[in-house]
């Protein structure tokens, strides 16, 4: 019997009316890597934040090593032995200081540390830590000069210096290349052998196959599946994470007219396989895949925010190579980006100005805006897409998430487009608004081709004529949305069995262009 390091029972947490954790029961054992999977909004981050002391649970008990664990804040959680390495690496290191200082920083804050820093002693201590973690770099290097993987290692090494009982890794490979990730996995193997309980949060199946001893799937704030039989049931885990209730939307898929957008041999990353895709007039294509499978990168390439590593695109038969968002929009390719609060909403503007923002030129004469024309167009769209508001003069911040998203999508429906890209259009949107948006997108689909990028299979089934599955930046499946074989679809999403997955080189896509 393996020793249980950390035990959660009946954990609950609400933010206002939003019930985020609905009774989590989970055991994390020493010397085991537990992979935690869950879609956006499933409650993973909240769970982590409760564990590392940022949030208090409303109900439920956590025990750590047999004793009750109730951290009063993040520092307390760390001192009691729960250490978290967060997704954004630079939260875990101080880039402007050298490796030695980073590794020994916590000793500087200990009571009894002297006033002056003894550099030689510091470096000796740091070298010990580095050696014990298998790090080989010179401890005098500035952390900012290291590559991402090394920085990640240092963040973990810092965490390990506190001898944690439970180590939480939040999407640790999201910015690592395959070979860098392999170094991280070797480190994880070592920590596992030392008897640390590890909670590993990721969406990348290749990672999970490599390191996980067991998988926990979360959905809507509850544990929806626990998989620990050998071999692990990866398809089952993905299915439990994405879930599927019979959709009430009845779709009669259309095959569409002439091809509008054609991708020939487009490669998203240097080492990834070619993507060939033909999007036809009048059809709605859902491109689905787990986080990091390349859906967002594909949208960015089509919208001109990133250049493909290779390949060509054609729009209505003519070569299409947009230099940025402005060029794409003027060619009739529109995109509603994901994460609307960051990428789309202009918080200082009212509904009408938010909606008409891309097309101000059409609403002005000699550069002078016609407020009447703006308000008329916005008012029309508010009615069509069903934004619940008092008037188009309402500040965008007064609207609910679903209604804000309707405004952001309505923005791109004001003018006719050739290609409409919607990246995660249902993010943070309630089910009612989701139906409204989906219906209107299908309703207005004539005369353009629509590509919807969604991670949730339900959402794809609700909106698409055709579903394309991406995995590791490669098209691995294609389905006409009629009596879809869900098992096969989910298997495609979780990807083919590959013991030594050679993932693509992941580069941070340059988002801002122009």
């Amino acid at each position, binding site marked *: 019997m393996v020793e249980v390091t950390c035990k959660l029972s009946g954990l609950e947490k609400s933010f206002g009316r939003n019930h985020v954790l609905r009774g989590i029961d989970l055991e994390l054992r020493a010397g085991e890597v537990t992979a935690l999977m869950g879609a956006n909004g499933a409650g993973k981050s909240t769970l982590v934040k409760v564990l590392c002391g940022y949030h208090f649970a409303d109900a439920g008990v956590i025990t750590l090593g047999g004793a009750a664990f109730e951290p009063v804040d993040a520092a307390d959680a760390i001192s009691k032995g729960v250490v978290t390495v967060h997704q954004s690496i630079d939260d875990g290191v101080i880039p402007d200081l050298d490796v030695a200082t980073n590794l020994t920083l916590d000793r500087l804050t200990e009571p009894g540390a002297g006033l002056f820093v003894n550099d030689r002693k510091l470096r000796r201590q740091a070298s010990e830590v580095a050696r014990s973690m298998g790090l080989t770099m010179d401890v005098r290097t500035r952390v900012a000069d290291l590559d991402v993987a090394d920085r990640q290692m240092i963040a973990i090494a810092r965490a390990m210096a506190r001898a944690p009982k439970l180590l939480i890794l939040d999407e640790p490979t999201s910015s690592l290349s395959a070979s860098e990730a392999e170094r991280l996995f070797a480190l994880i193997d070592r920590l596992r052998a030392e008897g640390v309980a590890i909670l590993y949060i990721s969406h990348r199946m290749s990672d999970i196959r490599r390191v996980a001893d067991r998988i926990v799937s979360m959905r809507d704030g509850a544990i929806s599946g626990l998989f620990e039989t050998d071999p692990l049931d990866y398809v089952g885990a993905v299915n439990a994470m994405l879930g599927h209730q019979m959709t009430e939307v009845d779709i009669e898929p259309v095959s569409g007219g002439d091809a509008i957008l054609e991708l020939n041999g487009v490669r998203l990353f240097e080492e990834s396989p070619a993507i060939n895709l033909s999007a036809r007039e009048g059809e709605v294509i859902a491109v689905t895949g787990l986080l990091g499978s390349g859906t967002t990168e594909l949208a960015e390439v089509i919208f001109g925010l990133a250049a493909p590593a290779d390949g060509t695109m054609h729009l209505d038969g003519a070569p299409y190579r947009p230099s940025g968002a402005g060029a794409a929009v003027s060619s009739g390719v529109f995109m509603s980006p994901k994460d609307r609060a960051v990428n*789309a909403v*202009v918080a*200082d*503007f009212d509904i009408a100005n938010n909606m008409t923002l891309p097309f101000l030129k059409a609403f002005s004469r000699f550069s002078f805006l016609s407020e009447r024309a703006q308000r008329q167009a916005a008012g029309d769209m508010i009615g069509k897409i069903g934004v619940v508001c008092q008037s188009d003069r309402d500040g965008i911040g007064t609207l609910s998430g679903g209604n804000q998203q309707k405004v952001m999508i309505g923005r791109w429906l004001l003018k006719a487009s050739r290609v409409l890209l919607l990246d995660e259009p249902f993010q943070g949107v309630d089910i009612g608004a989701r139906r409204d948006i989906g219906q209107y997108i299908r309703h207005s689909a004539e005369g353009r081709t629509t590509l919807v990028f969604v991670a949730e299979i339900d959402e794809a089934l609700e909106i698409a004529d055709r579903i394309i599955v991406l995995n590791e930046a490669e098209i691995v499946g294609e389905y006409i949305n009629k009596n879809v074989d869900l098992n096969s679809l989910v298997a495609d999403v979780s990807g083919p069995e590959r013991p030594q997955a050679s993932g693509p080189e992941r580069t941070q896509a340059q*988002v801002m262009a122009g």
Partner: protein
Amino acid sequence: MNKNALDLAIRYGFLVLLFGLAVFFSFYASGFASPRSAVFIFQSVAITGILALGVTCTLVVGGFDLSIGSVATSALMLSAYSMVILEQSAAVAVILCLAMGAFVGLINGLLIVKMRVPDLLATLGMMFLLIGLQRIPTQGNSIATGMSLPDGSVAEGTFSAAFLWLGRHRFDLFLDRLLPVPVVVFVLIALIIWLFLGYTRHGRLMYAIGSNERAAGLVGTNVQRYKIVAYMISGMLASVGGILLAARLGRGDIASGNNLLLDSVAAALIGFAVLGAARPNAFGTAAGALFVGILLQGLTMMNAPYYMQDFVKGAVLVAALVFTFYLSSRRGGRRTA
């Protein structure tokens, strides 16, 4: 009821205060309520007001321009240099100064947009650079007709009458020789910037950039170009201010214009509070400049000592910032904190 009262206070509080101050001084400072005095107030704020309108444009795109004061004094020196030493005409001097302002703005913009230098640091660097640069040609001396030059000769050129007209002429309005040219220029520029920022699509896009740069970029706005243009407007307006100052003084005085930067930034920030806009706006900036002008004029006429001035300006600024950032955020809705 309470919420409405707060809303009204935020919206009209500042304008009511402005009006109240004017009434107060009319009663207690004899001679305050006269056309001449009103024009004097306008004249005292015209140049800082013009600079403040430029800063407003950079604030709108989420930037800041610390170099305006030094651009203005550089324009002052450049115009004097071109007329007194190079013996050029008024038109050449004006064009040179405007080009210089636009060029400095362009460099500021490129530093910020292309070289990714933070706005405060880029324009701070530019400020130092210009303060030094404007003194190099004259070895740190002020420029006036008859000054001796490094090569031993004497500067023969003069400020042309046409140039001095810009600073000293007064138009007749009801009274003879009432309205000075700088005041007319200030009002015109305020009107233009007000229309540009508030009612053109370019202005609207600039506000969008200031509020959410990424979102503005993702709808196809050329964010970099708009930012550079904002700094160029700022630089050109600052040089307009410098030209008017030179025309009023009639000499290239290196010590003038020390207060320009702080006064104009204060006016633009006070402008946030006007009409509860809680963001940079041309009307607010003009009203802010006027507010400071009225206050100082009134206090001076009531014989308050000169060193009260900075204290009063600072107090008004702090009050306006509290208005903007505390009260407006409590109102919610328009601003999501």
